[in-house]
């Protein structure tokens, strides 16, 4: 902007006052000087007209309506769940919903939402793994399951034979342990010296447990990389499942994560 003086006002002063003038907050001699400059300056006169026109064009633009699913998408991408309450609201906007749909929405969605949580999936996976180990040890093979008959008598038969397997296995394990403890006793009697050595036998295990020098780091690392899921849990709906096992540790997790991210 050229910086010449016209009517005792410089162009840069005019520029500063222009917004005030258009806002209608300029008055008295300030306004007079401003107007006088606008009339006499070849640069600022047109600038005033254009700024005024541009302002009114912009003021004519009305607010646009965000997409209807925007809030739901935001909540899904931040708290990680489609909030069932919102879903119910969107549904109730539709003409007719059966009571069954409503029940499904209110009962099944929290459960489904919980099932989708990583922590729940992990626990479920571990439980399944443990079950499959037990079944394998008990001599039940997945291939056998294909031929399993679902007649009540057949189920009863399968149950008893599986129980027999398990009992049998348990008996075998017990014998092994018994033999082992006898051998240990025998050894102890043979070599009574070396105090603490026998006692220290469970010690390595104990040491392993307390040797957490590496663990906190790993744990933190996991927290760090799981930032999103922790945040998800922190703000998830307090459904029946979350109340049970997450409520106590969540604030701690979320606070530390925030700090790290900031």
């Amino acid at each position, binding site marked *: 902007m050229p910086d010449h003086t016209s009517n005792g006002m410089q162009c840069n002063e005019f*520029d*500063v006052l*222009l*917004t005030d003038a258009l806002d209608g907050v300029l008055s008295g001699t300030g306004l007079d000087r401003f107007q006088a400059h606008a009339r006499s300056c070849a640069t600022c006169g047109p*600038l005033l*007209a*254009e*700024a*005024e*026109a*541009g*302002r009114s*064009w*912009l*003021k*004519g*633009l*009305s*607010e*646009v*309506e*965000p*997409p209807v699913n*925007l*809030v739901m*998408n*935001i*909540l899904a*991408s*931040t*708290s990680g769940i489609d*909030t069932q309450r*919102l879903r119910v609201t969107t549904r109730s906007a539709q003409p007719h919903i059966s009571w069954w749909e409503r029940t499904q929405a209110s009962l099944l969605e929290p459960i489904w939402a919980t099932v989708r949580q990583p922590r729940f999936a992990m626990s479920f996976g571990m439980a399944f793994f443990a079950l499959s180990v037990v079944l394998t040890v008990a001599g039940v093979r997945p291939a056998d399951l294909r031929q399993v008959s679902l007649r009540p008598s057949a189920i009863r038969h399968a149950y008893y034979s599986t129980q027999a397997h398990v009992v049998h296995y348990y008996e075998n394990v017990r014998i092994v342990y018994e033999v082992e403890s006898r051998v240990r006793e025998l050894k102890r009697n043979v070599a009574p010296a070396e105090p603490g050595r026998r006692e220290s036998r469970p010690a390595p295990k104990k040491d392993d447990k307390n040797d957490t020098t590496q663990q906190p780091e790993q744990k933190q690392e996991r927290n760090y990389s799981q*930032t999103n899921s922790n*945040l998800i849990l*922190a*703000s*998830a*709906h*307090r459904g029946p499942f979350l109340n049970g096992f997450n409520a106590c540790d*969540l*604030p701690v997790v*979320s*606070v530390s994560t*925030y*700090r790290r*991210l*900031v």
Partner: protein
Amino acid sequence: MEDVQVVAMLVRRCIAGDSAAWEEIVQTYHRRIYNICYRFAGSGDDAQDLTQEVFIKMYRTLSSYDHTKGAFVTWVTTITRNLLVDHFRKTKQDRMTDSMDTPASEHEDAQPLSEQIPDHSAAADARVRSREVSETVHAALARLSPELREAVILRDLQDMDYREIAAVLKVPEGTVKSRINRGRAELARLLQRTYRQVM
């Protein structure tokens, strides 16, 4: 514009894991953020993605908001603006070559003004014309430099005061006013040119 204590409480509840508080924040600010993004980025799709990004960023950094340092709305707008700057840098080339005659978006997807067929009834004509005018203004806005565009969006579309805008853009108030003046004037010049072509 906002009750500082109410917002501070809402933020505290949110940090403590209250999902209802977070939902309230989303409900309160999504429209504003979407509109800023829409007017700056030009397209509804981009605006939707950007709005989501803004809320993800907000969600992660909520604990850094300090109500003694400024209004929540200023903080939210600053996050939005910073993401828009990143977005602009990423899509610079496409954006600068946008023609003013291209329909702006799904919101105002009428024909360009220059191809208008003038055989409507009076009321329908006025309605179509008004829609096309906003579409043309929206397209002209996209042709302003980002510094001028953001200044006029925050002032004329979001009604923020100069002090707040200065805080968001991190420039002095004088610079804000100067950019608003130049933005408005440049927009008027662009529209003048368009209408001269049509008429």
